[in-house]
């Protein structure tokens, strides 16, 4: 379900610190999915839900101590990330960066001539303003489906940067990736989603 993001006001924070159930429910409603994506990006599908459940317990207990040195969102994402990394260390597992290493750009080679210039230049988009693109409900569904089907690390990086608006440094720290891995994953996610819009502009469907 797509929705507008939750605004954390001082008043809302006070309610959270007082363990108000309705306020906490809203917090869970707006951040649970994003936290799942982050956990999956670090530890994989199988244990992500458990890690996030533990993180919510920790968040609930420790909200009273939240001092606002970072945003609440970053603080919560760091708790999930630390939980997932701890679990990973306990199991002496390494995450696979095969997806990052497989291809640097994610661009098809046949888009370019041997001299590196476009052989198939990007086509002009008929719908070319953000507000008009956002009016296309079918396109929004296509983008949501594609985002959900991105490889886990790509999706985690994309969600943190584009949806949660985290700085690249924070994305790197939260996911425990290198700066170059984050940039490659983000670039490839953007290219995949751009291809979805390209196709929609051309065919009117996903």
């Amino acid at each position, binding site marked *: 379900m797509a929705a507008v993001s939750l605004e954390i006001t001082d008043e809302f924070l006070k309610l959270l610190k007082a363990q108000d159930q309705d306020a906490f429910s809203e917090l869970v409603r707006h951040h649970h999915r994003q936290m799942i994506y982050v956990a999956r990006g670090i530890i994989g599908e199988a244990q992500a839900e458990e890690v996030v459940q533990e993180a*919510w317990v920790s968040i609930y207990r420790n909200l009273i101590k939240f001092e606002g040195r970072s945003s609440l969102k970053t603080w919560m994402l760091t708790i999930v990330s630390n939980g997932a990394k701890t679990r990973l260390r306990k199991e002496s597992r390494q995450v696979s960066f095969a997806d990052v290493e497989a291809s640097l750009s994610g661009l098809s080679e046949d888009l370019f001539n041997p001299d590196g210039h476009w052989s198939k230049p990007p086509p002009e988009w008929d719908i070319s303003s953000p507000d008009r693109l956002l009016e296309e409900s079918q396109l929004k569904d296509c983008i949501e489906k594609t985002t959900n089907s991105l490889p886990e690390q790509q999706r985690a990086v994309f969600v943190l940067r584009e949806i949660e608006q985290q700085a690249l440094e924070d994305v790197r720290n939260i996911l425990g990736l290198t700066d170059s891995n984050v940039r490659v994953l983000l670039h490839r996610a953007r290219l995949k989603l751009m291809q979805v819009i390209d196709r929609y502009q051309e065919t009117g469907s996903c």
Partner: protein
Amino acid sequence: MLSCKHIAENATDYMEGRMNFFQRLKFRSHLRACVHCGRFLRHIGLTCIVSGSCTHQTATDQEVEAILEMVKAA
């Protein structure tokens, strides 16, 4: 002059300010001369805005309820 392939492969580094002054200068001079790469950059920028705006997902009532119960029980 940089190739179009280089521009397409490094568009995110450019957009995220991850280039030094000279890299940025060379990137911009290519963009000024190449309508296709200008369009590519514009499309990537639009993609970021649109996909970031339409994929904020909320949890279902059941998911929220399950977390609340677990938090209370812990």
